[in-house]
C-alpha cells in the first residue's frame, strides 16, 4: 500500500484504504519514519486530523471510530503539554503509553494476517476431490456429533420452503394453541420409538398444517435432543437426517412420553430415566 502526498491540482480518486484508526496511525508512523515508542504526538495528530479533513472534503462518511481516535490523540497531546502531577511512587506515566500498547497489539495481528494471506494463496492452488454421490454399498460415515444446530436449521428451512406452508393472513384471529410443547414432545418421542430404523426428520413436520405448528414440532425435537431422549443422525454428506431414540437410559417409551407431559420438565425427565435404567 503506497500512499503518496495528494496533489491538489489533480482529480482525486484515491480512496482511504485503511482498516481503521489504528491502521491509519501505523501508516503515519511508518511514513514519518518515527519510533513507535517515541511518537511525536503533535506532528502525528496534525497529520491524522488533516487526513480526516481530506476525507470529509471528499464527502466520505467518517466512521465514528476515527473520530474517537482523533479525540484520544488531542487528549494525549494536551496532557503532554501539562506538567505531570506529582506522584508518590515517582513513576512518570507517559500519556502515550496506552496508545502505544494498543498499536503494538494490533500490529502483531496484522503480521499474522499477512501470513494467512500467503497461505490462502498457496491453498488456493491445491484441489481436492469434491464429495460426490457414491452409488457403492458404503458411504463415508459422518464423524460423531458433527451434525450441528446449523445443519438442523438449514434442513428445517428447506422443509418449510418445500412444503410451501402458507402464512396465516395478518387479519386472522389467533386461535388458542391447543398443542403444548410437552404434548408435541411426547408425540414425537412416541413416533421415534415406533420407528425401528429411525424417523426421517421431515416426517415430524410434513403432517403439520401451519408454520407455527412446524416451529413447535421443531422446538419439541430440539428439546428432546437437548434432554438426551433422541439423537439426530446424518449418515452421509447431504444425507437425510434421521431421528433415533437414545438407547441409553431410554426406558419405557410410554412412561417416558408420560413423564414429559408432567411439569416440571427437567426434574421429572431425569427421575424417569433413572427409574428406567
Amino acid at each position, binding site marked *: 500500500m503506497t500512499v503518496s502526498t495528494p496533489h491538489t491540482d489533480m482529480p482525486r480518486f484515491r480512496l482511504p484504504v485503511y482498516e481503521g484508526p489504528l491502521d491509519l496511525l501505523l501508516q503515519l508512523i511508518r511514513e514519518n519514519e518515527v519510533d513507535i*515508542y517515541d511518537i511525536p504526538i503533535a506532528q502525528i495528530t496534525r497529520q491524522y486530523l488533516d487526513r480526516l479533513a481530506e476525507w470529509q472534503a471528499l464527502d466520505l462518511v467518517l466512521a465514528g*471510530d476515527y473520530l474517537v481516535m482523533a479525540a484520544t490523540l488531542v487528549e494525549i497531546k494536551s496532557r503532554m503539554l501539562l506538567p505531570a502531577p506529582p506522584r508518590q511512587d515517582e513513576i512518570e506515566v507517559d500519556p502515550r503509553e496506552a496508545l*502505544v500498547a494498543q498499536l503494538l497489539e494490533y500490529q*502483531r495481528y496484522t503480521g499474522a494476517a499477512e501470513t*494467512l494471506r500467503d*497461505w*490462502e494463496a498457496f*491453498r488456493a492452488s*491445491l484441489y*481436492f476431490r469434491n464429495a460426490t454421490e457414491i452409488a457403492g454399498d458404503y458411504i463415508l460415515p459422518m464423524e460423531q456429533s458433527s451434525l450441528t444446530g446449523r445443519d438442523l436449521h438449514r434442513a428445517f428451512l428447506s422443509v418449510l420452503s418445500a412444503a410451501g406452508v402458507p402464512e396465516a393472513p395478518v387479519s386472522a384471529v389467533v386461535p388458542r394453541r391447543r398443542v403444548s410443547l410437552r404434548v408435541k414432545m411426547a408425540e414425537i418421542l412416541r413416533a421415534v420409538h415406533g420407528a425401528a430404523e429411525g424417523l426421517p426428520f421431515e416426517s415430524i413436520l410434513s403432517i403439520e398444517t401451519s408454520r407455527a405448528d412446524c416451529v413447535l414440532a421443531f422446538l419439541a425435537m430440539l428439546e428432546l435432543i437437548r434432554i438426551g431422549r433422541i439423537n439426530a443422525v446424518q449418515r452421509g454428506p447431504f444425507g437425510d437426517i434421521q431421528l433415533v431414540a437414545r438407547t441409553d437410559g431410554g426406558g419405557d417409551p410410554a412412561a417416558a412420553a408420560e413423564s414429559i407431559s408432567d411439569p416440571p420438565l427437567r426434574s421429572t425427565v431425569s427421575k424417569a430415566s433413572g427409574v428406567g435404567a
Partner: protein
Amino acid sequence: MSLESDNPLDRAASLEALLFVGSEPLSIEALSRALLCSEEELIAAVGDLQTRLDSSGSSLQILSIAGGYQLATRPAYSVIIGRLLARQRGKLSRPALETLSIIAYRQPITQPEIEAVRGVGCASVLTTLIERELIEEAGRRAAPGRPILYRTTQNFLHYFALEDLADLPPLEDAASPDEVRSAMDSVDP
C-alpha cells in the same frame, strides 16, 4: 493378518484407494482401522505412497491437513485446473483476515474483544466469516451481557492448508505494560 497387509507396497496402494474415495481429510485411526494395520505401519504406508507418487510423476500428493490425510493436486497443476473449472468466490478481504487472525490466536473470543484490538467495529466481518464457515459460535462468556464467543472451525484449517492450530505461525510476543514503559523510557532523553 491378510496377505495384502503383509506387503507394504500393496498397503500403499490400498491407502491410495482409501484416500481417493475420501472426500474429506481421513484420520490416522480411520485409515489404520480400514487397512487392519497399526498407526505406525499406516504412517510408513503414507511415506511409501508419497514416494511412489513422487517417482511416478503423478499430479497428486498426500496432504496432512485439518487433522487427517487427503489427496490433493500439486500446485503446479492449478493453472490447468483453473481452465477447466469455473471461478469460485473471492479471497478474503483484509479486514476479514485481520479479524480471523485475532480469533485464531485468541479463541474463544468475543466481538468486543476483537474490536478492542482492531479499533473498528467488525459485526459484518463476523457474519461473512460465519457464512464461509471459517468461524463458529462457541458458547457465551459468563460476563455481563453474556457475549457470544467465537472460535475457528475445521474448515478454517482446511482453508489455509493447516494440519492443526499449532501450525499457526508463532505470534510476536506481546509486550507487557512494563516492557512498553521501559521501551518508551529508553528513547526519552
